[in-house]
C-alpha cells in the first residue's frame, strides 16, 4: 500500500494547501478516491461512467485501495459493495443511466440496511430509444430510495462531494448511503482546473464498531437476532416495526442536514437572493443558468441564481424563504419530467410562482440563450 498520512476531514477539506490540476470529471473521481481511504471498490462498465472506475482501478494497482474487481452487472455490483459494507469496510462504486435502473432494487436495500456506501452516479439517458447522452431522468427515480443525494455542478464539486460524502455517510447518527450525481459527459469528459489536497493525505479509516447496525463479522454483538421474528408476520407489531424503521431512515436523512451544512457549506448557494426573479437549478444546469443570469443582469434585469447542491436532504426551508420574496422562480432542467420543478413546488407556499422549464433531454445541450429567453419572458 502507498504510504499516506491520515488527517482529519476538516484538514483535508478546508485547511490543506491545495494544488490545481487541469483534469476531467472522471479524473476528479480518481483524485477523490485516492484520498478517501477506500478499502474496496467494484466496477462495471457503462458510458459515461466507465473511465472513472478504470482510473480507480489504476490507483488500486498503485496501492491506494486494498481490493478492487469488476462485477458482472450493476445489480450484482451494488450487492457486492453491500456485502463488503456489511462486512465493515469502506466501499465505493459508480454507475449511471441504465446501470442505475438495472441496479435499482439495491438502493432502498442499502438505505434500509443503513450502509454508508458512496456511489457516483454519472448520469445519462435511459432506454428506449437507446441513448448514451446526458440526461438527469434517473435522478427522478432515485429521490425516494432513502439514499442521500448531492448534485455536482463541476469536476471540482465532484471531487469535493465524493470525499465529503464518505464523512457524512459514516456519521453514526446518519449511516446512510450517499449518491454523488454529476451530469455525464458535461462533467465526466470535460477538463477544468480542480484544486485538490496533497496526494499523501487521506481520510481516517471507517470504524465499523461506531455503526448503529452491527457489522456482519461475528465480532460485534448482537449475534442472536430475535426469537419470534416479526418479519412477514401479519400483525400490528410487525407493521409498526417496519413503519418505524422507514421513519428512522427519513429521520437519519434529516440528521444529515447539519453535516451537509458543515461540509458542503450549505445545501444551496445563492447569488442575488433579493432579485424579483430567481433561477433555481442543480448540476451543470447551474453553469448554463449562471451565464444567462450574468447577461440578463448586464441588461438590467432583476434576476438571481440558486444552486441546489443537496437534493436529499432537500433544502425545503431555504427554498421556501427565498420563494417568499421572489415574484417568479424559473427551473431549467436536463430531463423531460421536471423532477426538480416538482420538488420546488412541494417546498414553496405559492406554487403559481414556479415556472417549469426550459427543459432539454435526450442528450441535447442547453444554450444559455434559451434560459435567457425564459428570464426575459419572466422579467417582462
Amino acid at each position: 500500500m502507498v504510504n499516506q498520512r491520515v488527517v482529519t476531514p476538516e484538514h483535508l477539506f478546508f485547511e490543506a494547501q491545495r494544488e490545481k490540476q487541469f483534469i476531467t470529471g472522471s479524473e476528479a473521481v480518481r483524485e477523490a478516491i485516492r484520498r478517501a481511504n477506500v478499502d474496496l471498490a467494484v466496477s462495471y462498465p457503462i458510458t459515461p461512467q466507465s473511465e472513472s472506475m478504470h482510473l480507480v482501478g489504476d490507483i488500486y494497482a498503485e496501492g491506494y485501495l486494498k481490493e478492487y474487481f469488476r462485477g458482472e452487472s450493476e445489480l450484482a455490483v451494488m450487492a457486492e459493495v453491500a456485502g463488503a459494507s456489511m462486512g465493515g469496510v469502506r466501499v465505493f462504486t459508480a454507475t449511471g443511466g441504465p446501470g442505475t435502473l438495472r441496479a435499482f432494487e439495491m438502493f432502498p436495500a442499502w438505505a434500509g440496511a443503513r450502509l454508508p456506501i458512496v456511489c457516483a452516479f454519472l448520469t445519462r439517458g435511459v432506454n428506449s430509444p437507446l441513448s448514451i447522452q446526458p440526461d438527469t431522468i434517473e435522478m427522478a427515480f432515485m429521490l425516494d430510495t432513502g439514499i442521500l443525494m448531492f448534485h455536482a455542478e463541476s469536476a471540482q464539486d465532484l471531487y469535493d462531494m465524493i470525499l465529503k460524502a464518505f464523512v457524512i455517510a459514516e456519521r453514526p447518527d446518519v449511516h446512510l448511503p450517499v449518491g454523488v450525481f454529476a451530469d455525464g459527459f458535461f462533467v465526466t469528459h470535460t477538463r477544468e482546473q480542480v484544486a485538490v489536497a496533497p496526494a499523501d493525505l487521506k481520510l481516517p479509516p471507517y470504524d465499523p464498531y461506531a455503526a448503529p447496525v452491527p457489522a456482519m463479522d461475528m465480532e460485534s454483538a448482537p449475534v442472536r437476532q430475535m426469537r419470534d421474528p416479526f418479519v412477514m408476520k401479519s400483525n400490528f407489531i410487525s407493521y409498526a416495526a417496519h413503519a418505524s424503521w422507514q421513519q428512522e431512515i427519513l429521520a437519519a436523512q434529516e440528521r444529515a442536514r447539519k453535516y451537509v451544512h458543515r461540509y458542503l457549506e450549505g445545501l444551496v448557494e445563492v447569488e442575488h437572493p433579493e432579485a424579483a426573479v430567481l433561477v433555481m437549478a442543480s448540476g451543470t444546469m447551474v453553469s448554463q443558468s449562471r451565464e444567462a443570469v450574468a447577461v440578463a443582469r448586464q441588461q438590467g434585469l432583476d434576476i438571481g441564481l440558486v444552486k441546489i447542491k443537496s437534493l436529499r436532504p432537500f433544502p425545503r426551508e431555504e427554498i421556501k424563504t427565498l420563494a417568499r420574496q421572489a415574484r417568479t422562480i424559473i427551473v431549467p432542467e436536463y430531463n423531460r419530467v421536471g423532477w426538480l420543478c416538482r420538488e420546488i413546488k412541494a417546498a414553496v407556499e405559492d406554487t403559481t410562482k414556479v415556472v417549469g422549464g426550459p427543459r432539454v433531454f435526450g442528450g441535447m445541450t442547453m444554450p444559455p440563450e434559451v434560459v435567457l429567453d425564459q428570464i426575459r419572458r419572466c422579467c417582462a
Partner: protein
Amino acid sequence: MSESLFRISPGFEEVMPVEYRELVTNGPCGREVGVSDLGTFKELIEEHPLCAGCNMGLALRLILASLPKPEDTVIVGSTGCSSLAFTQVAVHNIHSLFGNQNAVASGLKRALRLRFPDKVKDVVVIAGDGATVDIGLDMVMQSWFRRERITTIMLDNEVYANTGGQESGMSPQGTVLNMAPLGKRFPKVALPEIAREAGCAYVATISPAQPKRLERMVRRAILTAREVGPTYVQIFCPCPTNFKFRPNEGLQKIKQRQKEGTFQVREYVSPEAQAFLAELEGADHEK
C-alpha cells in the same frame, strides 16, 4: 470471534431469555460438536417456524450443526422459506434481496479477508432452488467463475414453496405446479455439473435422510472453500406442503426418489481439493 461476544453483561443474566442463556452455557461455539451430538447441546437455530415435516427445516438444523467453526461463520441467505428461519439463527446472517446472495457473499468474504487477514471467517450461502438456479443464477455462477472463497448450499425443495407452489428450474419435468398448468416442460437444471464446469473445487448432492454424510459434505465444502476455491452442496429436501404428502413421509419420499434414480447422492472433488482434503483428513485421522 471475540470471546465476549456471547457473554451476558453482569446483572443481565436474569432478564436474558432462557434460550440465549443456554447458548452461552451450552452452545456449539468453540466446541467440537456435530450432528451426532444433536440433543446434547443448544442448537444455533431456535424453534424454526417452517411447516410440519419440512425437510428444509431438518436440512437447516443439520447444516448448522455441521459448521466447522460457527463462531466465525457468517451466512448469507435469500428470500424464500429459509429466510423465515434465519431470523432465529444465532450466527450473523444477511438477507438482502431475492437472488443476490452470491454477490453479497463475494463482497462480504473479501471484506472479512481484508479486516481479519490472520483469521478464518467462513462465508456460507444458504438459499433455495429459486434463488440459486433461477433469479440468482448469474450471480451464483459469476461468483464461481471469479473463484470466490465461499460455500454455496442450495436447499432444493423443487418448487417456489413460500409463494405458493410455483414451478422452479429445479422442479422435475412433467410436474404440474402453479405456473406450470400443463406440467413442467424441461428437466431439472443440472447445477452440480454446471458448478463443476464453472470452477467449483468441491460439489456434492445429498439429503437430510443421511445426516452423517450431509455433515461430512458440508464440512468438506466449507473447509475446501477456505483454501482451494468455491464449493457447492445441493441438498434435496422435498416440500410436504406443496407436493402434498404427509409431514412424516419426507424421508420415505427421498428414499423412493433415490430408488427411482431421480435423486442421487454424488460427490465431485477437484484434484487440488482432493490433495487438500487428504492432507487435512489424514491429519485429523492421526489425532
